[in-house]
């Protein structure tokens, strides 16, 4: 118990120590400045522009930027889809896996291009080594880089003065990948291998167990995929059970580093923001708000899993602690910390089975997603989500005192508010509407049973929690699951694919529109009536807005799932 809290404290300290150096480095990368890596990697950057036919000095307005974002993601989705459908004809398939079904391939294409990494399939029994490397791993890098690019564009919009340019999308994506994601992932991969994560192109290993059974052990180029899946807030594992698999996460040290990698870039980007707008305090205020919400959800989750399941008491066990679906080497605390971190960030990798969590332990990860993936959130997407909430917060404060709201000296007017509302409301609507559709859509093979109910693995309110969790996850680009839910069927594959697309691009485009609109505005000097946005007061205001929007939207739905289940369990 004590060690669980020690571990949490150590985790937060190490994370916060990384924020400044990494954040400052990323600011340099996004400003196009030379870094200590430029001598080694500069030629690759120039080569990238040549292969891509990119004019690196071209400036883009928001519309052009957005068109390129959407085009790049569309092409990515098509390539991911095609390779899955053709993998049985292609090399590097030692396990002889067949083509992926059309609906599953569609879902996975959408999932990886949108940085969601929802996995309807089981990795070791579905995807060839070639598919894992050429499509899934590549998307892990570039979908994260797209997130960084969009937030960089928004930051440029906030600080620009009567300009139309918000940067160059191709340069942002290339530099983010090359200077930030690639070096970090190589570093993490090698530590992971040293700790026991496999990295091989040989086929699966056949062994005879001590009790004499024949067994196949799935292997593969695991380390190179899982480092970036953590760093890029992707979360798509090599194996079915993700980071709970002893090959993906063999030791408590890999667990600590993987968990650190989840929040590393999203947290550091707050500092990048502060540096780029020339007011570091603004970045720290956003980081403080994220941290506050994170700790507020973490503590009850750890406690709920520790006190565990009262029903265990009837079986003369040593404790009620909820060990179901957790790995012995991590224990309760490290599992609960991961569960909250992976849902706070839109990572979605798991080191324990969220489906088996206690009702309260499962509630908070779900809430983390439903808050809109702004508590750290996805790489880039978390920060732009939180900045949009900051715009809403100054607007609400402005209404209270009757002044035109400003954020970083930019007047927030009707257009910005319309776009901000879209950004905040679309994921909420996607989650609730998709959940509702699933509950009423009749299933093809079982009369009287809807598609949503058919897919549930657990009876009672927990089954509803599975469904709500699934669409909270896809509708906020997280990717984790209450994994008993049978989502790998045409209905959920297709509906989920749509949900993931909508909640990625219908957010990115309005964010870029805000960036473009703010860039054109003058910066007004701070006056006595300006609400400072770097104070503890503003941090509390920002947190309140996030919580109130989330609570108003989701408490009724949560009441039908985890809350009623908790009452059943403790009655």
């Amino acid at each position: 118990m004590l060690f669980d809290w020690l571990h949490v404290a150590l985790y937060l300290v190490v994370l916060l120590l990384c924020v400044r150096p990494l954040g400052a480095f990323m600011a340099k990368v996004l400003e196009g400045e030379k870094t200590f890596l430029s001598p080694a990697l500069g030629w690759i950057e120039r080569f990238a522009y040549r292969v891509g036919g990119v004019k690196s000095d071209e400036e883009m307005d928001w519309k052009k930027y957005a068109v390129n974002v959407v085009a790049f993601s569309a092409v990515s989705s098509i390539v991911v889809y095609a390779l899955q459908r053709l993998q049985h004809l292609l090399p590097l398939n030692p396990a002889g896996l067949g083509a992926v079904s059309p609906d599953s391939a569609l879902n996975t294409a959408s999932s990886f291009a949108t940085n969601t990494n929802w996995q309807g399939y089981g990795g070791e029994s579905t995807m060839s080594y070639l598919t894992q490397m050429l499509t899934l791993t590549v998307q892990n890098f570039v979908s994260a880089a797209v997130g960084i690019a969009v937030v960089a564009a928004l930051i440029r919009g906030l600080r620009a003065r009567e300009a139309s340019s918000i940067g160059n999308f191709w340069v942002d994506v290339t530099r983010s990948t090359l200077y930030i994601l690639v070096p970090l992932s190589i570093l993490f991969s090698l530590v992971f291998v040293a700790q026991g994560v496999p990295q091989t192109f040989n086929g699966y290993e056949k062994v005879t167990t001590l009790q004499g059974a024949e067994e196949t052990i799935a292997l593969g180029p695991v380390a190179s995929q899982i480092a970036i899946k953590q760093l890029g807030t992707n979360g798509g594992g090599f194996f079915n059970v993700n980071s709970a698999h002893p090959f993906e996460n063999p030791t408590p040290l890999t667990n600590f580093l993987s968990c650190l990698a989840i929040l590393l870039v999203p947290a550091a980007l707050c500092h990048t923001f502060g540096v780029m707008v020339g007011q570091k305090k603004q970045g720290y205020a956003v980081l403080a708000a994220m941290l506050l919400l994170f700790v507020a959800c973490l503590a009850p989750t750890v406690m709920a899993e520790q006190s565990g399941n009262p029903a265990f008491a009837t079986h003369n066990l040593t404790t009620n602690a909820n060990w179901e679906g957790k790995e012995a080497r991590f224990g309760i605390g490290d599992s609960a910390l991961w569960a909250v971190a992976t849902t706070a960030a839109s990572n979605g990798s798991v080191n324990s089975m969220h489906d088996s969590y206690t009702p309260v332990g499962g509630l908070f990860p779900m809430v983390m997603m439903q808050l809109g993936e702004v508590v750290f959130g996805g790489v880039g997407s978390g920060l732009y989500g939180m900045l949009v909430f900051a715009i809403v917060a100054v607007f609400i404060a402005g209404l209270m005192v009757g002044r035109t709201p400003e954020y970083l000296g930019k007047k927030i007017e009707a257009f910005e508010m319309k776009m901000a509302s879209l950004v905040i409301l679309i994921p909420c609507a996607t989650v609730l509407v998709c959940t509702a559709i699933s509950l009423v859509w009749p299933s093809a093979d079982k009369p009287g049973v809807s598609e949503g109910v058919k897919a549930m693995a657990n009876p009672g309110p927990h089954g509803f929690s599975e469904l709500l969790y699934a669409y909270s996850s896809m509708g906020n680009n997280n990717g984790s699951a209450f994994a008993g839910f049978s989502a790998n069927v045409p209905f959920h594959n297709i509906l989920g694919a749509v949900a993931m697309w909508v909640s990625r691009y219908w957010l990115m485009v309005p964010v870029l529109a805000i960036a473009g609109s703010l860039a054109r505005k003058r910066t007004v000097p701070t006056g006595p009536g300006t609400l400072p946005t770097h104070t503890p007061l503003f941090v509390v205001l920002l947190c309140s807005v996030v919580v109130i929007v989330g609570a108003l939207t989701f408490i009724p739905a949560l009441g039908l799932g985890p809350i009623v289940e908790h009452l059943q369990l403790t009655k």
Partner: protein
Amino acid sequence: MKPFITSARVLLFFTLLCGVACPLLITAVAQAGFARQANGSLVVVDGKARGSELIGQQFDKPEYFWGRLSATTPPYNAAASSGSNLGPTNPALLEEIAGRVKALRDADPANNQPVPTDLATSSASGLDPHISVAAAEYQVARVARARHLSEDQVRAVVKESSSTRQLGVLGEPVVNVLRLNLALDRLNATSKKN
């Protein structure tokens, strides 16, 4: 059309960089520097691979220490990992625990200590190679009897196969079940020879 063409060309570049060059570089370094780990930390006995140190195996004979419950089909299937995904209020969860407690009691009727919770529940991966130190201690008497060893002899082997918290704070103290059972087999083999 131009954005799409640029997209395809840029994606080609990233496929070469992130999908080919990086994995190859990492594989080369891994195979050169950490060959054992990179190939799955295999446990080789008399020239034959008997498993991986990191992947649990199914043990249900009384002379072996048992691992966690595994929800894969069949149990401990290292080609298709899976958790049980049983919710906390699911009656099947309590049936599973009751069945496991009964199996443990049947294998060792004299032992009426409380069962360590990790030993009565399913792991997340279905491949958990470890049990808690308490779960090993719970089984010492049964294994010692089945192997005609003293409890202290068995306890000594358990100690050799356990690991403490990594770096003093991370994770839980655990016992590697495969390593433990292999060591016990070796111990029995050498004592037979003498």
